[in-house]
């Protein structure tokens, strides 16, 4: 795919996608600094390969890959991430702006979802990817992506009632 995007296009692209990308990265690395590093590495890698700016599935796949690489980079770090992730899974919430009580409850419910359902929800809701793009990014079928999304919403419904 030939990339004809200009420098300004990439800047706009990043400013639009960055909040969702950072949120997506934080599914694996809970530290905001690590999430920043992951997003930077993935975005730069994506840009350097001259991929189409519109191919968001590959961009999210790159973020996921960079996050996993960061975790695997050394065993001690991985263990620490797993420990922190395990402990923090039910306590640390994804970063959202200006939450009221109802929204905090919703975020807490979201945080309790299994990771595979949560990542699909994050990609679908806040990054507005299609199921085809999600499937491509995660290496799963579209049906699986759609199922995880439905299961995720169903699980959220059980624990959260909109006010």
């Amino acid at each position, binding site marked *: 795919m030939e990339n004809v995007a200009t420098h300004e296009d990439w800047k706009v692209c990043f400013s639009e996608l*960055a*909040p969702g*990308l950072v949120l997506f990265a934080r599914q694996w690395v809970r530290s905001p600094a690590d999430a*920043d590093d992951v997003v*930077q590495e993935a975005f730069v890698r994506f840009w350097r390969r001259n991929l189409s700016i519109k191919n968001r599935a590959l961009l999210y796949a790159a973020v996921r890959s960079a996050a996993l690489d960061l975790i695997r980079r050394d065993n001690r770090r991985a263990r620490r991430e797993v420990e922190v992730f395990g402990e923090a899974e039910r306590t640390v919430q994804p970063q*959202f702006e*200006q939450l009221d009580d109802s929204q905090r409850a919703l975020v807490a419910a979201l945080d309790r979802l299994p990771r595979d359902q949560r990542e699909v929800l994050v990609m679908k809701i806040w990054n507005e990817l299609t199921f085809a793009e999600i499937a491509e990014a995660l290496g799963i079928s579209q049906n699986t992506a759609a199922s995880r999304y439905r299961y995720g*919403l169903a699980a959220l419904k059980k624990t959260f009632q909109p006010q």
Partner: protein
Amino acid sequence: MNEELESELKKLRPVQPSPALVSRIERVLADGGTSGSKVIWPERFRVNWLGLGLGLAAAATFLILARIDFRPTEKTKQTNVSATPSLQQRAAALPNYQATGLTQVVYRQHDEGLVFPPGAEGPSRRVRTAKRETLRWRDQQSGAQLAVSYPTEEVTLIPVSGQ
């Protein structure tokens, strides 16, 4: 119900990326591929080239000053030779000793099957025998005894005739 929940989720807005990340990405994009590596890592990931260079220089200086030479010298060669005297040297050193016996203990015999030795008229069966031989000497003057024991391996080719 799903739409209502999705609507609630969409009201949550991910926080904006950190200014540091935006700045790093903008620098990379502005660089536009002129530098060798477009990834700008935070300070904590940078290699201290000055320290590394000074360390290597110090190591090189030490090697030069210490004049470390790993090749064997004549002195070490002689030491090695004299450390393992031959049997002739031993016999010359013990003129009064006379051989009194040889013991061979077979502790393993393995038939390796038929082989066709070059130049032989027919096939042979190769039998490998592992033994321990013990040689004994006796000093005729003092009656002192000396024994040397060592493992040996013998391969025997036993001609076989076709039936």
